[in-house]
């Protein structure tokens, strides 16, 4: 949808500020009652979901033109989607979609994205990863003892961050797959960026090209199933790709696969991992992982001015993210005690890294991860667990700056410990 098509939604914002907080009934303490890192950090209303909707509407109506400061406000949003979950508790508005479309409009107007975004987009184009690392080093974490099945129609898609920055997650993932005798192959240097960093900063045109290229490659390789331990890649491949390109492959996150493998008895969690942990729901595996369900129908005016979709239109509220699989895995690891934070599942507080924030505004990204770790520490847990290499990067960067920091693990690492694979 374009901003023009979103005008009705934008005109409907009542500036209620619900987008800044958890829904009222979810609030258990003042300290952890907010939901949007951007408004928490920068305070002016424009930094909230609703504020950016107003900004988009004002631009659309010709009241505003892009300025440097406006772009700064726009891109200090991780597009985590929390504002939209809360908004949809009461309204038929999609602030996160509107914010993304405003980023698309900024790129189309030639003023966006931000300088560091342009740099990583160039690197995605030249070496197929946003970090500018050499293509032939993409699988350098892959050791000889890992068994690949070149005849498999399943690939393990490590993603750029796990390949170049959080190799321990990629490594743990494939070791767990090997332990369960789950056959897979890898694309190696032919694994290209999924397009997430390009898409999330509004460069939709280039992101679509990347999607098309990747889908062609998957077809050529006969890929029928993609396993990934990256929430960002999962989100792109599972949720965004089908909106724009035809896909005929299944996408599975390692947390989902491990849950199945454990229940099938193919993964034996035997070793004690004595840890009190809390789990962080990555936005892209949680509320943002709910697929867009296509809908065709008509709006019927059932009462004056009150319309009902016929057939009922699925509402993407964030209810159907991947929430239970990682928790179910954690609960089955001997010795693990899972304690929950106050803001979880569809109401999880973002780690602060997404949508180009980590690249362009690293201090803000760290500030946000600090807030989330404060919440994690308040549970009494000694370790924070998540399922996203990008969250992992932002959390570990934050933890390096803290005295007596809690530990951080990707879920795959704990499973690997429990199956004895890390010994």
């Amino acid at each position: 949808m374009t901003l023009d098509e979103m005008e009705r939604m934008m005109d409907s914002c009542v500036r209620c500020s619900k987008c800044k907080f958890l829904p009222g009934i979810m609030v258990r303490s003042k300290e952890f009652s907010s939901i949007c890192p951007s408004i928490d950090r920068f305070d002016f209303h424009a930094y909230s979901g609703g504020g950016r909707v107003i900004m988009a509407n004002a631009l659309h109506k010709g009241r505003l033109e892009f300025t440097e400061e406006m772009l700064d406000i726009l891109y200090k949003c991780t597009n985590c989607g929390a504002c939209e979950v809360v908004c949809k508790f009461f309204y038929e508005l999609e602030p996160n979609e509107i914010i993304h479309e405003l980023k698309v409009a900024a790129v189309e107007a030639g003023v966006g994205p931000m300088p560091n975004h342009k740099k990583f987009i160039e690197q995605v184009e030249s070496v197929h990863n946003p970090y500018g690392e050499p293509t032939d080093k993409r699988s350098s974490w892959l050791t000889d003892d890992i068994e690949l099945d070149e005849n498999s129609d399943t690939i393990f898609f490590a993603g750029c961050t796990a390949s170049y920055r959080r190799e321990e997650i990629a490594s743990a993932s494939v070791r767990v797959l090997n332990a369960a005798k789950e056959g897979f192959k890898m694309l190696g240097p032919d694994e290209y960026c999924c397009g997430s960093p390009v898409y999330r900063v509004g460069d939709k045109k280039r992101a679509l090209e990347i999607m098309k290229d990747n889908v062609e490659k998957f077809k050529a390789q006969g890929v029928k199933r993609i396993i990934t331990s990256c929430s960002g890649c999962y989100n792109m491949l599972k949720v965004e790709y089908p909106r724009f390109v035809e896909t005929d492959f299944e996408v599975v996150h390692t947390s989902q696969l491990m849950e199945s493998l454990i229940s099938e008895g193919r993964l034996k969690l035997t070793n004690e991992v004595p840890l009190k942990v809390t789990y962080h729901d990555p936005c892209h595996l949680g509320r943002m992982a709910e697929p867009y369900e296509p809908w065709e129908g008509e709006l019927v005016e059932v009462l004056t001015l009150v319309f009902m979709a016929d057939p009922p239109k699925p509402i993407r509220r964030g209810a159907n993210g991947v929430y239970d699989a990682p928790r179910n895995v954690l609960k089955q690891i001997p010795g693990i005690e899972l304690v929950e934070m106050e803001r979880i599942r569809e109401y999880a507080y973002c780690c602060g890294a997404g949508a180009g924030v980590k690249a362009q505004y690293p201090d803000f990204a760290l500030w946000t991860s600090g807030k989330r770790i404060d919440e994690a520490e308040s549970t009494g847990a000694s370790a924070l667990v998540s399922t996203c290499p990008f969250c992992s990067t932002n959390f570990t960067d934050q933890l390096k700056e803290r005295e007596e920091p809690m530990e951080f693990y990707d879920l795959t690492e704990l499973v690997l410990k429990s199956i004895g694979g890390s010994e």
Partner: protein
Amino acid sequence: MLDDTVYDALKQIVGSDNISKEPAILDGYAWQWCNEVENTLKGKDPSRFGQRPDAVLLPCSTEEVQAIVELCNSHDVKYKALSTGQGAWAGVTTERAIQIDLRRMNRILKIDPDNMYAVIEPYVTNAQLQSELIKYGLIHNAQGGGPQTSPLASHTSFVGPSFTSAHTGYSGRNLLGAEWIVPTGEVLQVGSFDHTGEWFTGDGPGFSLRGVFRGAYGAYGGLGVFTKCAIRLFTLPLPKGWEWKMTGTIPDHEWNLPEYWKMYVLNFPDWEKFEDAFYEVNDHNVSMMAMASSAEGLASMFTNTKNGALDAIFAGLLMHTKRYFVVMLTAHTEREFNYRTKLIQAIMVKHDGEELIEKGIVTPMPMHYAEGLRNSLGNHAFRFTSCFQSTHGGLDTIAMSVKICQINLPIKQKYIEKRVIGDDRGEGMWITGYEGGHLAHAEIPTVYDPASPESCRGYAYYQDECNKADIEQALGIPFFIVGDDVHDYYGPNVMNYQNWLRKIKAAFDPNEASDPGHYVSAKK
């Protein structure tokens, strides 16, 4: 526009990170719900964009707010403070005006469980405060604006009945003390704060200026700025060791409903029996919640989606509900609960009522009890078109509330027939009792389409007609009474109170620096 020297002086007060004149930021304050109504009534396009402030500031202390106010007074600049700020009255109304966003002043300064009061800053929200109060078995009156809105704003400057008004009254009645930066910049601590160092009662033994700075309906931010306030708290029956737990996934959550809590929907054959029963229930002072609405209101309150509400309406609520009210009983002990239950049942039988939950006509989920407590049930009405607003809003007797509903019905039906407001058969209304007796508040929520200029205009004209009915039918003063024109319209019918408002404004705000647009102008 502000000249650079004034802007720079303001920047000196709050620091460069906490002031902006960037249009993209300013428009976040120019856009307000109900501007479309005000713009229409001023003969403009029904846009939600109102006056854009010249600058926005984010002070973090009383001292900073005071310095801003003093500077505005000395440089002919108007100011308007807001907290969460939902509604046209939160914005500035004139050129050369700045917006003071109190978001950084968000501390709960004190919870005194023994003396049952709390001291808060402007940006503490209802949900935040309640989440902390519940740990002490206490609640405050969280106005119907919702859990994300500011209790300080409501207690000091507005009228705030709520879903728990039967137990907690309304916000304006619960203000015990305030730190008030008067329009010229002096700081006054009113209520007993000034006398004892404690915020205990708004009427003394120190100065009480509640009648001056807020009166019955509040000054809507047009008479200075409030930077702290003390508010009255109320008991909340909860089992020992109980903690708030909400589980499940949006939109259907599960709440750990405390023991001895139960909701009833008491349905009566006509207004007369409804009124008698409503008087009795309120008079006995046994309920946490006692409020009435329409079938459409019942459908929206006890469902979690628009489709759910519409399904409930068409599944038979229109047929089964006549004149009902919802009671939520809460009790500390089984004996107290049994007594209250028997009392409610006796009142129901005495007035030929029936109970709709037991009959399976309506089924509140435990999360709806929690939403009642947190005051988000009223926000469900936004689900129909993403917009509604209320007319009337008198704080008077139960009989007057019923009269408002009856008189409004044909007015509303006329505009429904014009297809400019949502169809609730003209029945949509909300009444809550308060202060355990014959008192009640009635408002008429009405949905309209915020994206349709025709509907916005239609709602505005409907609101105007409702306001006229308040005068012509002596229904009391509506709660959204703002600005010179409206006060001048009502005043001559109500002992020319507007003259007194203007005297207050002139005495406390000689430079008229505190934006009078949604209060009253002394100079008029």
